């Protein structure tokens, strides 16, 4: 990608490697930012060589003018933290309604079968609580997407918002895991188990989607930025 000479390229790569090790966030956003920074360093070095500097000097100047990785990291990390919060918020917004749909499937199946035992009542109570938590998390996630997008032109983004979103994502992923477990048990006992098994698979897939994103968000939200 870079047209710089190997020796200079090494100095730029050292800079990029140090910065890469410092930053944490969604892979796509981080890769893009690092690529841009690498290209920016290479462009600066190249321009300086056109002004007559020796190649090694040009790279040294480029790196010095760029700011140290330590100087650059907080602003970069702030953007990556918000990118991770938005990623987690999107996964919550997409999966929380699915959780509610899964519970409706379970309750609808139980009602249709005419069951009204203690197990069904417990499942109903659990469903209402978890669906409520998922609904709240989805609303918070949607508000986060707005607050870190166009709305951020007018309102400053609260510093702790990524951490709040991380826990909203964690709540949703736990709710998904509980839903998957309950649906799996229900599928074993129900006559029309294929529909419940399908809902169970969707809940498990949603858990697999939200849990890593929420974990990553909790991690980056604690980093200085």
């Amino acid at each position, binding site marked *: *990608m*870079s*047209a710089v000479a190997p020796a200079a390229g090494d100095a730029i790569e050292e800079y990029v490697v140090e910065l890469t090790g410092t930053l944490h966030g969604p892979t796509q*956003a981080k890769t*893009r*930012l690092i*690529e*841009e*920074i690498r*290209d*920016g360093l*290479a*462009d*600066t070095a190249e*321009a300086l060589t056109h002004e007559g500097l020796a190649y090694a000097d040009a790279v040294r100047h*480029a790196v010095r*003018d*760029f*700011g140290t990785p330590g*100087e*650059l990291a907080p*602003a*970069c990390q*702030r*953007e990556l933290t*918000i*990118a991770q919060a938005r990623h987690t918020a999107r996964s919550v917004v997409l999966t929380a309604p699915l959780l509610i749909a899964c519970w409706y499937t379970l309750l609808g199946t139980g009602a249709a079968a005419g069951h009204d035992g203690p197990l069904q009542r417990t499942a109903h109570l659990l469903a209402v609580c978890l669906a409520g938590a998922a609904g709240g998390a989805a609303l918070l996630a949607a508000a986060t997407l707005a607050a*870190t*997008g*166009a709305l*951020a*032109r007018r309102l400053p983004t609260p510093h702790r918002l990524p951490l709040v979103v991380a826990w909203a994502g964690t709540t949703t992923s736990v709710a998904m895991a509980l839903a998957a477990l309950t649906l799996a048990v229900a599928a074993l006992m129900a006559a029309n188990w294929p529909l419940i098994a399908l809902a169970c698979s969707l809940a498990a897939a949603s858990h697999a989607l939200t849990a890593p994103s929420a974990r990553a968000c909790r991690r980056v939200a604690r980093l200085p930025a």
Partner: protein
Amino acid sequence: MRTDAVRGHLDGLLLAVLEQGPLHGYAIIAAVQQRSGGVLDLRTGTIYPALNRLERLGLLSSSWESVGERRRRCYALTDAGRGALAGERTAWHEFTTAIGSVLNPSVTPRPAS
């Protein structure tokens, strides 16, 4: 004049140099330095997270473009970005007028009491 002095005005500077058309990161830095006569000497790395933030806010759009053997991320002003630039210009004009009135009271007409 280093980054510390420019802080708070970086968004306006970046939007302003993109008003004439899309540019990639290094060209943006070069344009700021050229238009300031070399007075504004930014920590060049600081513009990359700033460009990412302005894109997130919808003030810039970006796309990868091939230049020779290289791929560069080019940024362009959006309609919202043009509006924000107009706002930055108005705020800057009001700020410099107010500061000028204090620093040079003799050449600034005083409001009638």
